[in-house]
């Protein structure tokens, strides 16, 4: 039994996602208490760059290089990861609460007959090696601290920005190549196409800065000023259910109960009154800024900074002010 802490390191176009570094950093902290080794799991092909970026963050990198891992399907991933887990018996397996994590982890946990805590906002490790996962319920109205049965590995998917990336992780990982022969009969699903979302922006669940507008923006074309502000901040643009239902914005950018939960470092809401559906989607953002003409808008109850004012005046001025400030750096 290896007793290792494993992190599934997702990557896109050769670049490892930030959440993987956050989780490995958490693993490094845990290992200071427990003495466990920290390992990254890397599946795909042409993984040299990805492996290199992970080297300071882990004691080991298990590399499974096979064409059937790209694009992701749970068929190929599950079979390969499950057999590696059975061989090494790690004590913990973590991943991002991403479309891949949410597709793969529940099924993998059932397959391994072990516990899995989804979409966590925090993990703590006791001196005794007991893992506690904290996760929102009812859209974030309450939280639960989850404990796991004795089965291994204890599994969790975690939202972005629950942990900081360690600036000096100080590891030098050993690469462990893993041959992965996948029985082709297991590959039932086939990815036949991919339509890339317009713009090069990160998804709102992945972005550190999200700028959003709601019905207060009055017309779909007015989102241009929100996009300009996001551009200056290198952020992504989100929105509310109302504008999506109006057909102004794409569903993928909807924040809230029937859309996405975001966990940005900075969230800025313009002309968003703060319906509970929306508030539930921003509960784990670090800093929240709200601008709305109504000084009694509910959104202010859930914000760190507020301006009761006109977004049509404030957004362009804010964009210009930021440009000015950033250009003097």
């Amino acid at each position: 039994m290896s007793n290792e802490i494993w992190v599934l390191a997702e990557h896109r176009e050769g670049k490892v996602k930030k959440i993987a570094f956050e989780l490995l950093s958490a693993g490094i902290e845990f290992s200071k208490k427990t003495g466990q080794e920290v390992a990254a799991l890397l599946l795909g092909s042409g993984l040299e760059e990805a492996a290199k970026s992970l080297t300071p963050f882990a004691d080991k990198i298990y590399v499974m290089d096979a064409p059937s891992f790209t694009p992701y399907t749970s068929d190929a991933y599950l079979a390969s990861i499950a057999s590696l887990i059975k061989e090494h018996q790690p004590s913990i397996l973590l991943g991002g609460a991403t479309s891949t994590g949410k597709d793969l982890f529940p099924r993998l946990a059932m397959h391994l007959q072990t516990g899995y805590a989804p979409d966590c906002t925090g993990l703590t490790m006791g001196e005794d090696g007991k893992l506690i996962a904290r996760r929102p319920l009812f859209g974030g109205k309450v939280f639960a601290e989850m404990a796991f049965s004795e089965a291994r590995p204890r599994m969790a998917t975690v939202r972005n920005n629950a942990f900081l990336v360690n600036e000096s992780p100080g590891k030098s990982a050993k690469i462990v190549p893993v041959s992965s022969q996948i029985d082709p009969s297991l590959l039932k699903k086939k990815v036949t196409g991919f339509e890339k979302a317009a713009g090069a922006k990160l998804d709102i669940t992945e972005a550190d800065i999200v700028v959003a507008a709601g019905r207060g923006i009055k017309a779909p074309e007015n989102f241009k000023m929100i996009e300009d502000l996001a551009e200056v901040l290198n952020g992504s643009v989100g929105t509310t259910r109302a504008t999506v239902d109006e057909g102004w914005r794409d569903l993928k950018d909807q924040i809230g109960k029937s859309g996405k939960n975001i966990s940005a470092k900075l969230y800025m809401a313009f002309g968003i009154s703060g319906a509970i559906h929306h508030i539930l989607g921003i509960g784990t953002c670090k800093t929240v800024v709200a601008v709305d003409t109504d000084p009694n808008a509910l959104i202010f109850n859930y914000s760190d900074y507020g301006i009761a004012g006109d977004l049509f005046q404030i957004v362009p001025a804010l964009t210009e002010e930021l440009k000015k400030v950033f250009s003097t750096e």
Partner: protein
Amino acid sequence: MEIYVFVKQVPDPEAIVKVKSDSELEIENKYFTSFFDEIAIEAGLKLKEKTGGKVTVLTVDNRRVDALRRGISMGADDAVQIADPALEGADQFALARTLSTYLKDKPFDLILTGRQAMDDDAGIVGPAVAECLGIPHIHSIIGLEVDDQKKEAKVLREVENGKESLTCPLPALFTCQKGLNAPRIPLVMNVMKAMKAQIKKVDLASLGLSLSDVSPYIKIEKYVPPPKRPPVKMIKEDFPENVKTLVKLLREEAKVI
């Protein structure tokens, strides 16, 4: 096609939910059928209307069958409630084992459910049932076409940087996401009828399951209130000073830009 849809009655997003003690919540009595499950029901009904067959709604709940009645009022043919005192406080894996045991001898082409129930927000039951039944699953679909002859589904799924199309042999399980369809509003007449519809009740013993088959893998140790934000700081200066102050606060106090 034989289609099964897992549904759940959950607190409405407007309902007040508070921590009462470490082990207990106070939940306002305002319930609705989990929105994503309604999308799953709608998807099942649309397929039935095209290819014929039957839609059965299923829930595991000791108390509430309203989601089943919602399903019937929308047009589902059959409703099954799995209930047992042993399932009180069961985890999602236990529910998945229970549901898959019920289904394993049934002829089914497709199982649908919401991408997650809007109470525990876990999204475990669907994929876990697929694993128990040994059928493929796809999480969070926003497009679905079925070729009944070829027993194959064409599916569109949302991922972080775009939309992915997949083909998947049937039988399969898909979890449904907003965007797949707009659930129909049932006619009042059908709502009345659904109130009187027969609901088949199944317990663990009739499935050949015992207490040890539903032992949990995960357990809630403690409920905690959500982290509280400090009171909002309203920037009360006039324009454009307020904008300058905001930028200053974000840089020097919050340190996020």
